[in-house]
């Protein structure tokens, strides 16, 4: 096992370096790219911390929805996309359960990629 800093601590250090010292040292379009890079490092940090549990939860939801407890997550996602592309009617209860599942996944993905974005809950 590695000594400290942890992977997450190191990523925070890299992001801080990019946002402070590197950003000050560059100009023009490179500034934008450095900001994007720093943000991506912070996303990866959150993904390492939150991603595994989110993937496990998504797999659990899709297993229940598709009644398949053997398949891995990519297989389940492919099966759901195929079901949605199939013109066969979805059925009300299935559709509601699927919608709730998709929304929960979107919220988990947002917690990694853009925290706070899912605070907005209405678009009408």
């Amino acid at each position: 096992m590695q000594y400290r800093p942890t992977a997450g601590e190191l990523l925070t250090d890299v992001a801080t370096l990019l946002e402070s010292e590197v950003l000050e040292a560059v100009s023009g379009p490179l500034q934008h790219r450095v900001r994007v890079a720093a943000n991506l490092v912070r996303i990866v940090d959150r993904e390492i911390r939150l991603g595994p549990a989110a993937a496990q939860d998504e797999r659990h939801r899709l297993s229940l929805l598709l009644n398949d407890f053997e398949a891995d997550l990519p297989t389940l996602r492919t099966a759901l996309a195929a079901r949605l592309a199939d013109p066969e009617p979805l059925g009300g209860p299935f559709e509601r359960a699927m919608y709730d599942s998709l929304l929960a996944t979107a919220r988990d993905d947002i917690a990694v990629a853009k925290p706070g974005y899912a605070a907005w809950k209405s678009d009408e």
Partner: protein
Amino acid sequence: MSTEDGLARWLTAEWGEPVTLDNVAVSSAGARRLNMLFDAGSGSRHARLAATILPNIEIQILDIATEAEIRQIAEHGGVPVPHIHGVCLDPSYVGGPFFVSDCVDGETIPRRVLRLVAQSGTGPRLAAQIGSAIGRLHAIDAASAPVSLPRPEGGRPVAHALDLVRTAVEGLLQPEPAFSYGLRWLERHLPDEPARNVIVHSDIRNGNIIVGAEGLRAILDWEGSRVGDPMEDVAWPCTRMWRFGEDAMTVGGFAGLEPYRSGYEASGGVWEAERFRWWRVLGTLRWGVGLAGQAAAHLDGRARSIVMAGSGRRLAEMAYDLLLLVRP
């Protein structure tokens, strides 16, 4: 020869006297266009102008001559655009075709637009002005547009847009079930083709407008113009992508829907609520697959860029927005 020298040479020929350029700035416009702003001066004339240059003709969406013509048609129809003084298709001046227009002063950067509008309290008025401008654009007879303006396949903009987005969803690097569900919603709620196809700008939104304290000064970036469904244009500035965090303000982050709708109707536009909703979903999904396309272009080496790589982590936002819009 530099771009600056080339423009001076062209203006010298146009004005019939020696012209020099001053205070040259390059504006941060779209990826395909180079926009140069400058003061042009001769013995008798001085003007702040903008040159819109297409440096790489391979990546054009719309050719420069057609873009200029559409802007002139729009201006004639009462849509505020920077007035065009001349079009040059000869690449010997600046390395590609270009047109020169007035440089309209004002804010274009979205967050600055929001700040200015908040300070001056002009959000509803700005929304009404944009609605009205779109209504005037749509009042123009599409038959007056040049034949070089893209038209939807079979004159069916709804089916055409759905086909394109379906192909993009099917071509994702890995399945995105929220997008598949959005696509299914679009198929289920497919509206009729519009009663009348019009000239659409296709990218009117906060970020493509010039705004002053008194309101709308001009609509920019006409390279996406084509013939289409009027509600496509109407719905686009109301998607969440263009609110810049001011999510409760449906139109561009600065106003609710009502003044915008009134403005559109006051200049002859016909508001269709269901069709508006459909295009808002379509636009959101299309933006989502567009981001996925950027990630793919980065990964396969067509356009390596950390920004394009980052687009792949933005799909979650679009999945969430899409799900909010299509809640069963």
